[in-house]
């Protein structure tokens, strides 16, 4: 099909296969997470079964993007029955086919079991994980086949672009996006429409739209999931942005590590070009746009927009000082608007539903929804999208299902290496850009790492510092040397070689690095340390005053004397008689944790 005008698109939509054309749609998650547990094989076997049973006219197997319920993968969803099966194995397929697809009897043993509830929820929409979510950026993820452009078009794909080119001037597009209140989802939270306006205002014919898909924050994977699950929405939004600022060229800068996402993007670009949706005179107008992919090569600093631009030009990814901002002098020295994947994914929905619809969602200053990646000590690992203003408690306990073993959650690290920790005192805070900054954290890209009492906050801070000092590009001194010194102080503390005065040095050094670094990486690098120092000073003091326990011990009240710990100890420092409490010789303990792993009754106390 080739689209030469708006009418062609409408006609195409009419003939695209719909879910309603089939009696049953079997959606098999083919996101990276589920692929790693062989979900591709599940889809293959299902397809073969359908052929064998001659059901392929009635039942469609759809390989979709991420459902977000990654911790329970691989996931299979049956529509229109709205039933989600979790942790599906190859050997379960026969039963799903025979029981559900043929005889329409739900296989209840494969349903998700809610914690603290005896009965299972049959309807996916009734699952706590999905109940409080609101999917705008992820609207098509897990719903459509990302490698099939018709699946996108049938869900109003490219209709926002058509509307923009038919009905709006570039200034009107900017006005709509500005009024919607959409802010950059990559970290800073700058008003997207305003960014476009600034780029539009700079004179010149050659301008660029850049999609920042260099998702480097450890613990964040929403951009990857959007690109894997709904690549066309990003392409469409880039073209809308291109029309708004007056650019005819778009570039996607994506991490080389994201193989599946990159391949799906190449495929999507190829399909859209063949359909005439990318290229010259789109929808018969005089607007032309081309999109290319630029691969990153493993440098965290390239998520910073000026460094990203250097990297796209074939240089070391070192940032430049701002101003001049990329909106004035960006790629090849020309005005460039750099926006993040999730930001783009919101744009077509805003155009189709209007700015009022979008701005009615969220808080006063933060509109719309935000995707968060839940990881760490939480039951439902995965991706969730909630309206701005949702509380941490709702996300962690209602959606996330709380701690997997029901332990108390001590803190949440949000915003990756640029962010900070939130303690349980703040779990009822409504999340938006401002409230997070007020707590010494930041939205960042939206990675949330959940931690319990077993996680040592000083070691977590040291972990992040090791990351940033390793990823520091070395261009400016405060970041290059400062983060290294901070890391050394932390290393000394953790190795019990620290001194009480180290704590002051750490804080002062951190504040200096924040104030004097060149780019966002250095300006935020001390945040994980400063925020953990603010809320968990006692853990730092335990190291600084060397009162920290470094060995394991056994709670005699819980120990049942099973001897498992003693048998697993590599240095034989655990003694005790059978069926009597054991004890650890703390002078010999090497803190390897073997006893902790072995104990069946959780009687071992961690240092």
């Amino acid at each position: 099909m080739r689209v030469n005008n708006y009418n062609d698109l409408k006609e195409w939509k009419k003939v695209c296969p719909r879910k309603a054309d089939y009696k049953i749609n079997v959606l098999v998650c083919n996101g990276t997470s589920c692929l790693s547990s062989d979900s591709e094989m599940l889809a293959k076997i299902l397809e073969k079964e359908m052929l064998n049973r001659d059901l392929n006219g009635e039942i469609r197997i759809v390989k979709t993007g991420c459902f977000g319920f990654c911790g329970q993968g691989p996931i299979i969803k049956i529509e229109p029955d709205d039933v989600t099966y979790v942790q599906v194995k190859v050997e379960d397929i026969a039963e799903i086919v025979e029981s559900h697809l043929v005889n329409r009897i739900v296989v209840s043993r494969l349903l998700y079991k809610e914690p603290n509830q005896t009965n299972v929820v049959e309807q996916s929409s009734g699952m706590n994980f999905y109940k409080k979510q609101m999917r705008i950026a992820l609207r098509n993820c897990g719903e459509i086949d990302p490698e099939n452009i018709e699946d996108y078009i049938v869900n109003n794909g490219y209709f926002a672009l058509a509307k923009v080119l038919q009905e709006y001037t570039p200034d009107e597009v900017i006005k709509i996006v500005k009024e919607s209140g959409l802010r950059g989802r990559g970290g800073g939270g700058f008003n997207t429409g305003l960014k476009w306006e600034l780029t539009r205002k700079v004179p010149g014919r050659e301008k660029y739209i850049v999609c920042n898909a260099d998702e480097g924050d450890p613990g964040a994977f929403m951009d990857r999931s959007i690109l894997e699950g709904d690549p066309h929405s990003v392409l469409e939004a880039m073209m809308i942005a291109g029309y708004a600022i007056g650019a005819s060229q778009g570039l996607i800068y994506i991490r080389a590590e994201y193989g599946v996402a990159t391949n799906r993007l190449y495929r999507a670009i190829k399909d859209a070009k063949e359909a005439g949706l990318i290229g010259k005179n789109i929808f018969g107008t005089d607007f032309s746009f081309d999109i290319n992919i630029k691969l990153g090569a493993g440098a965290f600093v390239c998520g910073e927009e000026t460094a990203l631009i250097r990297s796209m030009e074939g240089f070391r990814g070192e940032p430049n000082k701002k101003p001049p901002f990329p909106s004035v002098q960006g790629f090849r020295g020309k005005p460039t608007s750099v926006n993040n994947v999730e930001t783009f994914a919101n744009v077509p929905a805003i155009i189709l539903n209007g700015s009022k619809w979008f701005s009615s969602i969220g808080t006063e200053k933060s509109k719309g929804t935000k995707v968060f990646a839940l990881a760490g000590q939480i039951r439902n690992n995965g991706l969730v999208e909630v309206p701005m203003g949702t509380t941490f408690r709702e996300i962690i306990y209602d959606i996330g299902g709380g701690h997997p073993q029901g332990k108390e959650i001590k803190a949440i690290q949000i915003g990756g290496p640029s962010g900070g920790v939130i303690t349980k005192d703040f779990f009822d805070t409504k999340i938006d850009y401002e409230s997070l900054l007020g707590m010494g954290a930041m939205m960042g890209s939206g990675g949330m790492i959940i931690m319990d009492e077993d996680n040592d906050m000083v070691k977590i801070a040291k972990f992040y510092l090791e990351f940033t000092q390793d990823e520091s590009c070395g261009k400016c001194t405060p970041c290059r040397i400062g983060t290294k010194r901070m890391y050394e102080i932390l290393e000394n503390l953790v190795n019990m070689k620290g001194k009480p005065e180290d704590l002051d040095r750490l804080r002062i050094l951190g504040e200096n690095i924040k104030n004097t670094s060149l780019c966002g990486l250095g300006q935020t690098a001390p945040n994980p340390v400063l925020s953990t120092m603010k809320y968990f000073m006692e853990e730092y003091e335990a190291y600084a005053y060397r009162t920290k326990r470094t060995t394991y011990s056994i709670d005699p009240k819980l120990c049942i004397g099973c001897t498992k710990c003693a048998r697993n100890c590599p240095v034989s420092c655990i003694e005790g008689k059978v069926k009597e409490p054991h004890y650890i010789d703390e002078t010999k303990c090497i803190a390897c944790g073997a006893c902790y792993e072995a104990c069946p009754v959780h009687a071992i106390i961690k240092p």
Partner: protein
Amino acid sequence: MRNRILDTSTLDKELLKQLDAFIDSLEGDKQEHLIHVLHKAQDLFSYLPQNLQLYIARKLDLSGARVNGVVTFYSYFNEKPVGKYIISVCMGTACFVKGADKVLERVLELTGTSKNEMSSDGLFTVKDVRCIGACGLAPVMTVNDKVYGKVKPKDVDDIIRHYRSIQYESK
């Protein structure tokens, strides 16, 4: 490296031809495509020895220092030979809090090598990598393109044994 004599005798001629064809096919400013070219070169040669870097520099009319500067800046590029199986242990936060350091320790112990070095039998190179975005499966390790999720240190034994045995069978 500009004045150094380029010695390509250690490089496979056929692969060089493929690299040339790739570079010739690039449109626009070729120097801007340096990172793209390096990706292609590493795909072909599995690593980027210095004479290959110099070869690319001459081809794109860049200084050897500029190419080497880019290669060493980005962690994705290898200057040293790599094993047949590249084991990457994710050291992202989610994996870290779930004990990835112990997984890495076990991998290094079993392969008998140190980080970023090739094992003496040429089979394995072990890397600790940045978050690969499979946090729902933490801790995660990959062997070439295959992802292993929820890895415990004791699972590592089976995984390494598996790759050793397919190696043995293929011989």
